[in-house]
């Protein structure tokens, strides 16, 4: 830093930055690995002046004052080059000489990260640590009451239904009259939520699909993954693996012509169609794939020019009311596969979601409702949307489920919960809590990125640069120099690890409830929380 610099308003010191690079000159070998790997060029080699003074109190002695120089690693303080805390430097440093540290005080970055009048955009998460789901306990543990099951020994059928389940009377009637019976899929209750080909790197996306396929074909677990809005590689559309895939359509309609072209050649129907109306991380804000990530491949799959930013509008352009959106979209998508494929909307959690649900219950073709809570992740969003908009998933799913009970349809239209499930690593506990609050299954995104590919994002605003395509782990980058750091096989292996261990944990939770063949959906008498107000709000037990 120049000692003589002028203090423009955004002149910051490392003390003002959210992440401070701690560096030990004593340990550093000046190998250049840290500066080579830094995704945001936050650190650089710098030349330092060191004054050496040798004095003596003897009269007329030689008093020495000299300058030496030395080299070391220095952190840049420009807002544009602020350290993101990813710690890739620490990862590559052979001498443990460098690591980023969260500013222990209050950083001032928020006040300056709007240069040129552009508010902050980022990928990642809400950066709020707390989670009501983590506080929910499973307080009903059957000792001698229910048939207590052994998670390690008993066999479990951890399955859920995706699709419209008719009432027994109606079902029988249609069977008798050879009427249309809505398609229902029996699937694993943990779903990989919509992350697009484009938001994710090709290696990451392929790894996830490969892992899902492996789980289905080698482990007998009917795990499903949603494509997100970005189309689907043509080969996958024409393979038998398509049945493990939930295709998403959203307001940008990217890649749908390829899907339409592939329909006559499909060996299998897709698992389901998800119509995205909203995303929990940024409700009311549309999708966005920033130009950094739209390379030739992504452009080809999406049917757009390369190198342009791709917004999906916050609303579907030709739909002006719930009735119209739901009826039009669900019907069109159902028709595309001859009413053989379940079609359901995904909305961001909101105080208005009951209105959507009520509408769906009156629509025979609606196969379910996915609700995405405020703790969901995103590839790119305005920070204000991410941090300040949205609704927690727990109370939203609960309200919707209780409403279904009120109208007697709780077993007929499944709810799927997403957003922040496992955000602090407690995946099975969070999933089980939501299931017992009323979800038929849960969708995860960030958790998969962390567990299956080593995403370094945390709730304290670490990394979060998914939007600009410089993901140091190659998860959300379209630059081969980054995404080739990731091997799809390794990702697939970790996906399998994640699901298999989740399965064990879920069994550990449901076995003491005596459940082995059906999920304890809505079994809220098993839940307790040590917060009275939360207990009241969620209609579960207050336990202290």
């Amino acid at each position: 830093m120049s000692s003589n610099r002028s203090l423009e308003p955004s002149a910051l010191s490392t003390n003002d930055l959210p992440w401070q690079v701690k560096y030990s000159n004593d340990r550093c070998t000046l190998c250049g690995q840290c500066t080579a790997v830094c995704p945001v060029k936050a650190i650089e080699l710098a030349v330092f002046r060191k004054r050496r003074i040798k004095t003596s109190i003897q009269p007329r002695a030689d008093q020495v004052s000299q300058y030496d120089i030395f080299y070391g690693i220095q952190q840049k303080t420009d807002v544009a080059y602020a350290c993101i805390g990813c710690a890739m430097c620490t990862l590559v440093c052979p001498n443990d000489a460098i690591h980023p540290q969260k500013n222990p005080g209050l950083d001032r970055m928020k006040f300056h990260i709007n240069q040129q009048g552009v508010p902050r955009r980022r990928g990642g998460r809400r950066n709020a640590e707390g989670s009501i789901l983590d506080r929910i306990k499973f307080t009903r543990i059957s000792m001698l009451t229910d048939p207590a099951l052994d998670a390690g020994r008993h066999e479990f059928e951890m399955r859920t239904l995706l699709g419209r389940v008719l009432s027994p009377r109606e079902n029988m009637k249609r069977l008798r009259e050879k009427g249309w019976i809505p398609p229902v899929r029996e699937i694993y209750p943990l779903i990989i939520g919509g992350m697009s080909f484009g938001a994710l790197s090709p290696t990451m996306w392929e790894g996830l699909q490969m892992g899902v396929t492996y789980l289905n074909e080698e482990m007998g677990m009917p795990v499903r993954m949603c494509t997100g809005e970005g189309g689907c590689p043509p080969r996958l559309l024409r393979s038998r693996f398509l049945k493990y895939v939930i295709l998403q359509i959203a307001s940008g309609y990217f890649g749908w012509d390829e899907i339409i072209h592939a329909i006559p050649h499909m060996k299998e129907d897709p698992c389901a169609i998800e119509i995205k109306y909203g995303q929990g991380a940024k409700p009311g804000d549309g999708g966005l794939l920033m130009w950094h990530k739209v390379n030739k491949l992504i452009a080809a799959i999406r049917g757009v020019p390369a190198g342009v930013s791709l917004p999906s509008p916050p609303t579907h352009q030709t739909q002006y009311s719930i009735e119209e959106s739901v009826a039009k979209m669900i019907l069109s998508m159902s028709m595309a596969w001859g009413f053989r494929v379940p079609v359901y909307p995904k909305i961001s959690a909101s105080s208005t979601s009951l209105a959507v649900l009520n509408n769906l219950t009156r629509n025979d073709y609606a196969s379910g409702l996915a609700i995405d809570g405020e703790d969901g992740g995103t590839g790119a969003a305005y920070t204000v949307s991410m941090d300040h908009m949205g609704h927690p998933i727990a109370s939203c799913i609960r309200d919707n489920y209780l409403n279904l009970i009120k109208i007697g349809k709780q077993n007929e239209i499944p709810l799927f919960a997403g957003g922040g499930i496992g955000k602090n690593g407690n995946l099975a506990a969070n999933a089980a809590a939501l299931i017992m609050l009323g979800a038929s299954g849960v969708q995860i995104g960030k958790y998969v990125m962390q567990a299956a590919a080593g995403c370094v994002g945390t709730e304290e605003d670490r990394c979060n640069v998914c939007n600009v395509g410089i993901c140091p782990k190659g998860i959300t980058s379209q630059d081969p120099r980054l995404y080739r750091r990731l091997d799809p096989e390794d990702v697939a292996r970790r996906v399998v690890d994640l699901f298999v261990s989740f399965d064990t944990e879920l069994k550990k939770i449901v076995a003491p409830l005596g459940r082995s063949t059906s999920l304890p959906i809505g079994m809220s008498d098993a839940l307790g929380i040590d917060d009275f107000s939360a207990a009241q709000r969620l209609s579960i037990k207050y336990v202290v």
Partner: protein
Amino acid sequence: MTQNDFIYIPGKREEKRIPSRVLEEIVHQQIRSGQRNLEIEAFGQHGIGGRLWDAGTDPVNIRIIGHSGQRAGSLGTANTFIEIMGPASDDLGWLNAGAQIVVHGHASNGVMNGAAQGRVFVGGSIGARGMTMTKHNPRFDPPELWVLGTAGDYFGEFMAGGIAVVCGYGSQPEDRVLGYRPLVGMVGGRVFVRGSAAGFSEKDAKQVALSDDDWQWLKTRLSTFLEKTGRPDLLAAFSMRADWILLTAKSPHEKADSPDRSDMRYFRKQIWDRELGPGGLIGDLQEIPPGTIPVIAKGDLRRYVPVWEQGKYISPCQAACPTGIPVQDRWTMVRTDNVDEAIAMGLSHTPFPATVCGYLCPSPCMASCTRHQQGMVPVNVRDLGRAGETVPPPQPEQKTDRKMAVIGAGPGGLSAAWHLTLKGHTVTVFDTGAAIGGKISSVIPGSRIPRKTLETELKRIRELVSDIRLNQQIDAKEFARIREEYDFIIVAAGARKPKTLPVPGIEKACFANDFLSDAKAGKAEPGRQVVIIGAGNVGCDVATEAHRLGARDITLIDVQKPAAFGREREDAEKCGAVFQWPVFTREITDQGVVLQNGDLLPAETVVVAIGDMPDLDFLGTFLGVENGFVTVDRFNRTTDPKVFAIGDVVAPGLITDAIGAGKRTALVIDQIASGKDIQGVLPLPVVDKSRIHLAYYDPGKIADGMAACADECASCGNCRDCGICVAICPEGAIFRVEMKKDGFEYRVDPEKCIGCGFCKGACPCGIWDMMPNTPV
């Protein structure tokens, strides 16, 4: 053993079933009273035959007829021999600690659950969860379970020791002799099976070949088992070694070595790629080589690559110099012992190196020096300029057939003429005055520039530019003629028309230029009190000259904060000149200047120095004019493509501005004349000062002398050829190349470079930059 040896104990009394507790008491009483053979007619009582430790080591025989209840023989001890004459209920031999039990029928669920010793022979089949949780205590023989028929589901769960033999009698070849999902959680023991054990937990158990010892053991015990269960006839059928398999537990080591999942690499190749096609998911769209790349990559895989940007940027001093003199190049020449060349080079940029760079210029180059970034004193260029006084003019390029006219022989016009001549063009300079040099010669005080220096440099200009026509009357007609005769015309007539004030008594004042030229010619007598209206640098020159000529009470007034700066202002202040502002002149009288507020500033001489305007009458209506100045674009082109305008006719400025404009315009005209793109004359972008590293310099040092100045120059954007980059590169990727024709280059071996940017970080001159690598 004979019938008579047994005491009969009925399980009923008066047609009423005896509770398990009471039957247990009766049995124990009999044992304590010395009975060792009991026949019990059971009615489902719990745990018959267990816990007979009261008999000490004496063998006790229990025969159970009727309905044996749950947990017969449970907690049995080694002295106990139980024979159940019919089927057995659940948990037969539960926690068996040594009892031998024979069942002449089937046994239901949980046979031998948790047993650690003893033997159970079942002459039929068993239900679910047989041989589960069994142990083997090394102080005793292992527990054994023999089953003639088949086992039910979940056989051998968590089996930790003991031996089970399941003969599979009566089963079909396709039947699973061990039932559904046997041996889950097995950690010890052995299971002999005659038939299929399909579906056993391969995570926990493994099938091994029977050794000769195993077979010997099995064969010997088989006959005992069949004897006891009354089926010796089956011995021959059961003695086919090939019909038997042996299952044992996997060791933790074996479990770790053989994960229960198939290999993902295999899956990818055999299933994934086979269904999707070669290259997998997007193999049809893009090739992604298999495997991963290192985080620290070289060659094409680097994200950023270093670029040696020598000659891509100009230094801040050069950029700040209106004449565009590459100051840092000159210091480089000094450092490489080309002092003469460094001095002479000035003449290829200005005809006035000594007069202007050495004396008159306020040196914007030094003001913009990168060294200021750290409060360090800039390198002094004045000496370099002054040394240019005695250098002969450069050799012009080959003569062209183009004729150029320059109107005005001031600094701008002479600069234009100088450069056009150097480019080989034929130049004619026209001026209305009697001498060349414009204001430098006529109005700039002698105190600021030694007469000899100025005359030497003017003489040198005359040597190069031979056709200078003085005392010319140039009116519109003459200008039109010149315009016709010459290929290009540069108007550099300067601003000679003083601006005046609309106040009464203005005629009593004189104008600054007149005063200065009179002063220079020794004709001015200002008196003691002088008021100068207009406190710019010209006003300061007036003050200094007035002082030289005897004035002692000098006041400069202005309506705004004085614009004077630098040497001119310092000199005026040294003369005791007083600045007053904001003040407004009401009138000028014989007593002096009367201000708006009524104050009188007494003055013998009042000088107006509020600037000059060009006199553009001679241009007629040829050119566009705005606010009294000729309209030009950034290439100094007027509205007439043949005519260019520079200097004060365009806008008021420094002498060096005019000289720079003269040079630039000459180059533009030369480009046009030779059919080249005029964009080529635009200067390169200036180097970002943050790229220069000043830590290499002693911040306290003030360079004295040319060699020291050259050392202290940060050489911004101009390689010092120090080789620090070669030394700092951690991969040894940078090397120096001596060029055949011109100088040297530093280059990077891409196969060694990791793109760390250390070269950029260490380069004193800011030559290295890191650029994003070409997209793959």
